[in-house]
């Protein structure tokens, strides 16, 4: 894809590679972390900090300027998903690479109905909503009891950089 088309894609709300505020954790650390670590995709300077204020371990660093993009100390992250449900932009995800040999556990924010249930198959969607595979719902939680659910989906590890949403097949 040309640079211009990549820019257009990003300008319409699709992440097109790592950039400030949307950086993947170091792979070696990530692969060892039981419970997973947070992936944040928040590349624009906006006045917002609930990811930091909701973080119980100090993994999401304090904001010097509330408009800065978030920074993470992945060593401290436990994959608890409190930020996943607190983020007003639904821009936090947790991915646990220790789930099984082939599969990772993807913990994604979800605010649609109907809610999927444990054991249900769901479509794995990329950042443009294209189906890239199938996953199995392992758990559905509501960490802050505020109607933002976190759906835990097991799906192939090969999808770690692209799988960010689900479609519940009715």
């Amino acid at each position, binding site marked *: 894809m040309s640079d211009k088309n990549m820019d*257009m894609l990003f300008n319409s*709300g699709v*992440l097109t590679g790592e950039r400030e505020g949307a950086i993947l954790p170091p792979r070696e650390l990530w692969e060892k972390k039981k419970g997973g670590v947070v992936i944040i995709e928040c590349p*624009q300077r906006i006045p917002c900090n609930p990811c930091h*204020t909701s973080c119980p371990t100090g993994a999401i660093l304090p904001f010097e300027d509330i408009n800065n993009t978030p920074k993470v100390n992945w060593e401290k992250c436990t994959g608890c998903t409190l930020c996943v449900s607190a983020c007003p932009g639904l821009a936090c995800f947790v991915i646990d690479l220790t789930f099984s040999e082939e599969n990772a556990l993807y913990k994604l924010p979800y605010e649609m109905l109907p809610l999927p249930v444990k054991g249900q198959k769901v479509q794995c969607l990329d950042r443009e909503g294209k189906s890239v595979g199938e996953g199995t719902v392992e758990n559905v939680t509501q960490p802050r009891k505020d109607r933002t659910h976190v759906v835990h989906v097991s799906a192939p590890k090969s999808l770690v950089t692209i799988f960010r949403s689900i479609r519940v097949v009715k």
Partner: protein
Amino acid sequence: MKKIAPEILVIGGGAAGLSAAAEAASAGAKVLVVESDLRLGGQLIKQTHKFFGSKDEYAGTRGYKIADILLNEIDSFKDSVSILQNTTVTGYYTEDDTFTAMRGEEEVFQIKPQKTIVATGAQERLIPFPNNDLPGVYGAGAVQTLMNVYGVLPGKRVLMVGAGNIGLIVSYQLMQAGVEVAAIVEAGPRIGGYWVHAAKIRRMGVPILLRHSIKKALGEDVITGAVITGLNEKFEQVGPEEEIECDLICIAVGLSPTTELLSQAGCKMMYVPQLCGNVAQRDRTMRTSNPAFYTAGDASGIEEASAAMVEGRIAGLSAAAALGYPTEHGKIDEYWSRLESLRMGEAGARICQGIECVLVKGWEGASHE
């Protein structure tokens, strides 16, 4: 004709007006809030998404919950705040410094306050295109009211026009309500709203077509579709054209401040593109050139509700102080530093330019504090 004479009149019971009323009442002033709608809370009661900002602006809390928080605060001052709902302030007469107001469709009366805070919010802009008068063409505010206040679905499949925060958020809300979003068209080369709002609907498969607009609506009696077209850099419709099947066209192309009452009161007005229209000049206390008039929220320039609430606090505090009520020293500076931090992001730069145009250091002939 009945005439009431409150110390402070707050026109508009939305985010800015409720904040102003609470702040003025906390300083000891007697306040009357007049709201044209049946319910208080303004746009907040339609906002089902979580707010940005910091804890001070209730970040992470859904808009309608923020309305509840403000209403509870108002309720704690119920001896000093009275509220008239379903009441529209219809005009201001400088001859006797009096407002006319209408409650429901029958009762007409006058209000003569000592100070007035105009927190009248904004009105939606619409764009012209053939057939835009057919049933099924809505402003985004109407769609939100139908869905989120009255629980009525406005359609089954929507074309959204505009990718500012309202277009993006209302698209998401429509999807939550089970409406299919066919596409979002945006005339500019990038989304105008927050990138994360766009990302969350993109990953659910909704196309956002940049440099595109609606050319015409299709249908005889009701909307059956729309023709969209590509735009060039001069916003001319150059194609390619595409037909979209939809029974709902939602227009979210921006807001203009509602400022008629300020104009009628002789406040010095200025057209400021960055604030989206005609707004009153104001000093740091949100006082206008008319010493009895303050302004706050979208009526003083289109911005986020988080900023509107802080501006409301400033206006409420200043109006109470001007009436001689003791207020905490330095509180206005504290509120300004909150506003400044809210305005330091990408969208804030534009707002700051606009504020710089309308903010005055002081008023001629006014005594200094």
